[in-house]
């Protein structure tokens, strides 16, 4: 008799574990992929929290992960430009947020960058690159990414992406322009990758989390906010969350978009 509750608990634990695994697998497989020639681009992402207010913006964090790979294991092409499109209805606020400059981040380690510009940080992540030096076998290098609120450039807001790799020791600052345009991905973050990276470094993917909550004049602010504008009788809505476009050397482009859902109480 006394063994029954323990057995029940075990069954519940196994069921919960199975459910967790199912969710994990489903989450892992939820990335959308697109292939052009031998090049495959994949994008995964989500916003948190999933439950948003219907009428007014809720502070959110956005997670994106994108991978570039070749179907035949050949070397990746060089990426010249990276563009991330976000929903037009998402809002970005940098009101009262500290501003960092390229000069302050140049040649800094991740720790150094945080010491100098920590107050302006709006995101973090990891970039993966394939390094193919002549006469050496190719290897993978990972760089820690930090994203900072940058100064306005020609009327547009900017974000500064600081990438630092310990092996090989490399520090790069890439300014992204934040702009609005027409279309479903009306909020764009775009940057030309510096030619100074050289011909041997090939971007193979990135993981990025964007979001920051801060106070300004006693009021809570959020770098990213979103709403879930669905009618009362619905509990969830679907929207195009993000689109990533890689422009390769030679002008060819490859990209993919993802659709996700939001919930409203």
């Amino acid at each position: 008799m006394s063994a029954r509750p323990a057995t029940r608990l075990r069954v519940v634990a196994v069921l919960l574990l199975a459910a967790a695994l199912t969710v994990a697998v489903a989450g892992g497989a939820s990335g959308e992929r697109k292939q052009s020639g031998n090049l495959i681009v994949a994008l995964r992402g989500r916003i948190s929290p999933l439950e948003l207010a219907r009428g007014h913006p809720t502070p959110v964090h956005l997670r994106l992960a994108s991978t570039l790979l070749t179907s035949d294991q050949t070397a990746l092409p060089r990426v010249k430009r990276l563009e991330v499109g976000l929903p037009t209805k998402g809002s970005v606020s940098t009101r009262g947020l500290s501003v960092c400059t390229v000069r302050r981040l140049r040649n800094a380690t991740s720790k150094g960058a945080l010491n100098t510009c920590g107050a302006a940080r709006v995101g973090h992540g990891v970039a993966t690159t394939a390094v193919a030096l002549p006469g050496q076998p190719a290897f993978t290098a990972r760089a820690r990414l930090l994203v900072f609120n940058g100064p306005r450039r020609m009327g547009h807001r900017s974000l500064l992406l600081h990438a630092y790799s310990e092996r090989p020791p490399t520090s790069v600052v890439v300014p992204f322009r934040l702009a609005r345009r027409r279309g479903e991905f009306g909020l764009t973050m775009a940057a030309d990758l510096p030619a100074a990276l050289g011909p041997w470094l090939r971007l193979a993917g990135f993981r990025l989390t964007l979001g920051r909550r801060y106070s300004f004049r006693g009021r809570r602010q959020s770098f990213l906010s979103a709403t879930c504008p669905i009618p009362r009788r619905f509990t969830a809505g679907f929207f195009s969350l993000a689109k990533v476009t890689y422009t390769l050397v030679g002008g060819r482009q490859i990209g993919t978009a993802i659709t996700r859902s939001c919930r409203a109480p």
Partner: protein
Amino acid sequence: MRTIEEGSRPLKVAVPLVLAALALMAGLGTAAAAEAPTRHDYVRRLEAICKPDALATQRVMSGARGDVKAERLKVAAAKFAKATSIFGGTVQKISKIERPAADRQRLRKWFGYLGRQERYLTEITVKLRAEEAIQAQRLTARFIHNGNLANNVVLAFGFEYCSFKFSRYG
């Protein structure tokens, strides 16, 4: 007593017959392989069919999202009905195209997903017409998921207009 020679007489007749049959089958196989299109040709032919239909879907679904937001579910249902009809027509047209021999199994799986997509679209239409919002919402989630699974099956084909894009549906 049967000698070996006597016993092999039927074999002598059978061997050329089998060889002839094999040669005929091989010949037929070669002819079939010659007729089957390459993946590149197949993609080109399908895209030519899918493109006008994908654009038409985008046109008829224009504003559907706004209709749902404004709770004009019956108006949205009418748009979904048109999109379902276009989708069904496209699937019917592309299913008649000769498939590349090496991709037949994969394409059978893809067409299975497309059939399911059509059923989801039909069901979404029915639920929207009946103003059963939650049911329509659940089916939409399945429709998107199934569409992504379909895309993954034919990833290597590099379809543009024949691939599933939720953005086409309003």
